[in-house]
């Protein structure tokens, strides 16, 4: 009866394992601390931006649970401590996985930026080449009232046409030579 009333956690003179009881209370307290830290860590570990930081309380929770398990006496229920440890480990794994997620994001970002830059360079190159191909140069010379205008077409079409004409004339010439 006295033991039932005197429930302050200090242990009475009648109970032989007084020191063990204090130890178990410490284990219990550590278990509570570990479980609370682990639950809070678990909730925050899932959120992408905060998840990376959650690894710190996760490790703290694991340490608390392990210390609690080592200090808890054999008669003490270790449910809270084990629950704290399991949740802390899972939370830490989730938090640690956020590192991989962050890595993937950075990798993705690099690829994205690289791709964008490459596309811009390609577009600029295409535009410049197109402008050069379509460029028409005209030179006007004036001397003593005489005007001379020279037009040069750098367009790819005209060059192709010129080449085709040259080929035709060559084939015609070679054809006539053969006939002769």
């Amino acid at each position, binding site marked *: 009866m006295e033991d039932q009333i005197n429930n302050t956690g200090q242990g009475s003179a009648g109970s032989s394992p007084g020191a063990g009881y204090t130890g178990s209370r410490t284990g219990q307290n550590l278990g509570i601390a570990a479980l609370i830290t682990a639950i809070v860590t678990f909730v925050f570990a899932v959120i992408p931006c905060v998840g990376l930081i959650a690894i710190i309380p996760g490790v703290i929770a694991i340490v608390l649970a392990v210390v609690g398990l080592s200090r808890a006496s054999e008669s003490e229920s270790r449910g809270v401590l084990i629950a704290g440890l399991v949740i802390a480990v899972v939370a830490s794994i989730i938090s640690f996985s956020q590192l*991989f997620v962050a890595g993937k*994001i950075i990798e993705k970002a690099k690829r994205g930026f690289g791709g964008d830059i490459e596309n811009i360079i390609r577009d600029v190159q295409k535009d410049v080449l197109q402008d050069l191909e379509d460029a028409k140069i005209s030179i006007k010379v004036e001397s003593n009232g005489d005007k001379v205008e020279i037009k040069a077409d750098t367009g790819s079409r005209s060059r192709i046409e010129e080449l085709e004409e040259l080929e035709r004339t060559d084939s015609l010439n070679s054809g006539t030579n053969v006939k002769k």
Partner: protein
Amino acid sequence: MTGVAISRYVPADRDSYLVINLVLATVILLVFIYSGIFSPGKDNYPVVCIHEKVTGQPCISCGLSHSLSLMIRGRIAEARTWNANGPAIFIFFAAQLIMRILFSACRVKYPSTGKELIIYDISGSTVLFLVAFFPFLINIFSLSGIH
């Protein structure tokens, strides 16, 4: 001796449940205070999104602080625009706060409730958590290559 040990163990276990509930309720209250102190108008939130910093694009949790602040102020429609998951997470925290109070009251009022109450608590909280944080969980698994 065994009787003594049991009489001591049971209240201690009950106490630990109450302590856990009390501390968790305090943490949830702190989250609400954080959301109440920092206002979306001033935009003075201390947490910065790494994803947005690196990529320039918003991530799944971007605007969550804004959303929770707006939910605290009762501006639900605006909260949804900041983060679509914001209202669900706010409801999760609010429900947890209510659950902590109710379950603690139940434990104090009906001390005979043993592990059943804890099992109900764990089951309910797990379901709530999975429902509220489902998009975040999917995001983690999809980006880490597990999904």
